[in-house]
């Protein structure tokens, strides 16, 4: 297998300890949980998405396992501003704060609370199961551009996380780029639903949700590939990454780093496990790998 050189990296304006980042909303609700994942080998962590008001999220079931994946509709539960307390003690750690809002002003406001602490922001314009938020915003290039621009005013690197649930993801990627994004994260979950035939109703409390995990890996690779062909800013691959080879594959498609979410379900030590396989002293420089499959 191809391996990489170990060492710190900078992606989209954020210094990271390695190429493996915890994805938003996965074990990211508390500072302690984020710290644990960093200790277990992540090169950086993205927090749970934080919004303008505290929210309890959708009623359960919120998450079920499916074939090679997970279907979730958490509904963006979050402690809102109180979350600043969670990450205070993580000031020296590579923490990216994921935020959401219903318009550019809300995005800017929420970002403002964290501007002192966050190494970067990740804009969630892509969650497929929160009415008025997330993908409701992220399918419109103009809105994405404006939200990005609004948050960029804080002078902290802005990553924009895209939904795959659009006809052409590159139009959204270009909007983020024009809005001043430092990087694009692709992708958030793929919209999906499961129905309990015995109960004769959708399983998720919210009825539909977002699919993640290995099932969507080919979808994410394709999104990264397409964005690499159109955008100049760095891309961070996300969706179904669960092995060192997946990381290399994402990078060859065009990603400079990856985010990993659902794979923590199989083993919370996944970052360390991937890291051990991914890096060797005589590994290849990442620059020689990123986008190489485009020939």
């Amino acid at each position, binding site marked *: 297998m191809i391996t990489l050189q170990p060492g710190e990296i900078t992606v989209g304006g954020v210094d990271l300890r390695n190429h493996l980042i915890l994805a938003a*909303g*996965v*074990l*990211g*609700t*508390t*500072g*302690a*949980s*984020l*710290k*644990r*994942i960093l200790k277990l080998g992540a090169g950086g962590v993205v927090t*749970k998405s934080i919004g303008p008001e*505290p*929210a*309890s*999220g959708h*009623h*359960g*079931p*919120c*998450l*079920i*396992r*499916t074939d090679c994946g*997970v279907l*979730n509709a*958490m509904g963006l*539960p*979050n*402690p*809102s501003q*109180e*979350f600043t307390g969670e990450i205070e003690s993580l000031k020296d750690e590579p923490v990216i704060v994921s935020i959401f809002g219903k318009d550019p002003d809300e995005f800017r406001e929420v970002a403002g609370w964290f501007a002192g602490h966050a190494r970067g922001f990740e804009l969630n314009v892509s969650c497929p199961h929160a009415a008025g938020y997330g993908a409701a915003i992220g399918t419109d290039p103009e809105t994405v551009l404006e939200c990005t621009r609004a948050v960029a005013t804080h002078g902290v690197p802005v990553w924009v996380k895209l939904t795959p649930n659009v006809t052409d993801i590159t139009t959204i990627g270009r909007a983020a780029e024009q809005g001043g994004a430092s990087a694009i994260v692709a992708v958030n979950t793929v919209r999906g639903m*499961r129905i*309990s035939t*015995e*109960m004769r*109703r959708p*399983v998720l*409390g919210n009825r539909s949700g977002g699919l993640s995990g290995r099932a969507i890996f080919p979808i994410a690779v394709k999104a990264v590939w397409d964005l690499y062909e159109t955008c100049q800013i760095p891309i961070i691959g996300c969706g179904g990454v669960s092995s060192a080879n997946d990381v290399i594959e994402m990078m060859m498609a065009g990603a400079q780093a990856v985010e990993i*979410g*659902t794979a*923590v*379900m199989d083993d*919370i030590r996944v970052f360390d496990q991937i890291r051990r396989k991914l890096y060797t002293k005589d590994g290849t420089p990442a620059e020689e790998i990123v986008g190489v499959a485009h020939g």
Partner: protein
Amino acid sequence: MAELPMMPVPVTIKAIVPETPSIRTFYFDPGIPSSPGQFVMVWVPEYDEIPMALSSEHSITVQEVGDATAALFRLNVGDRLGMRGPLGNGFTVSGKTLAIGGGVGVAPLLNLTTAGKVSTFLLGARTRDEILFAPVIASSCNLHIATDDGTEGHHGFVTDLMDGIDLDEFDHICVCGPEIMMVKVLERLKRAGIADRGQFSLHRYMKCGLGICGSCSMDPHGLRVCRDGPIFTGDDILESEFGKYTRDATGRKVYFPSARPEGEIKEEKTET
């Protein structure tokens, strides 16, 4: 560990047994092969999905406290629930085991007791009517009861009963009940230098039950109650949020009444 569950498995309620004025046991079929201390995410259609210990492979024992449990209480024999489980680690015992249970926390311990794994059981309740499972426990082991109001057994807290017992005799002390009670137990074990023998069954807000969402993470180590627990040994939770605060559905901290505003218990002082 076994494969994590996928879709909720439908089960049919076969019997509903009122245990106390606020607690009922729901017997269901098919059962969930599991070990004592494991739990399930119980889907009450149209309402919510909530964590419940298995009081046996075929039952959950539920206290009505809010919307979902109230909805559960409105169900009848023949109605259906969805179950994702078994989840969590369960108790790990061998040798001589002391069980200490309070309130509905007796549920997961019942499963351990009927498996013949408990030699002595300290059972606490607010009042006589609220005592859970006393006859069946008494038939399997040595039972000592305490009630807050003295209507049955010792008048006082279940922790008082620990004074009448040689804790050192026990290889494991399995505990489940209100967190404030569990904290007191842990303090005593710590004083006796055997915090590591304690196995505490914890409750935290749970959404996924699979160790991925993070809503049940505890400070300061980020342990996930749903996956790393719900059973933790005493030494694992000694210097933690345990007994101080928990988190609600939004992830905001909720302090226990007895915990100071700063969220710190000075253990020595509160005990003396």
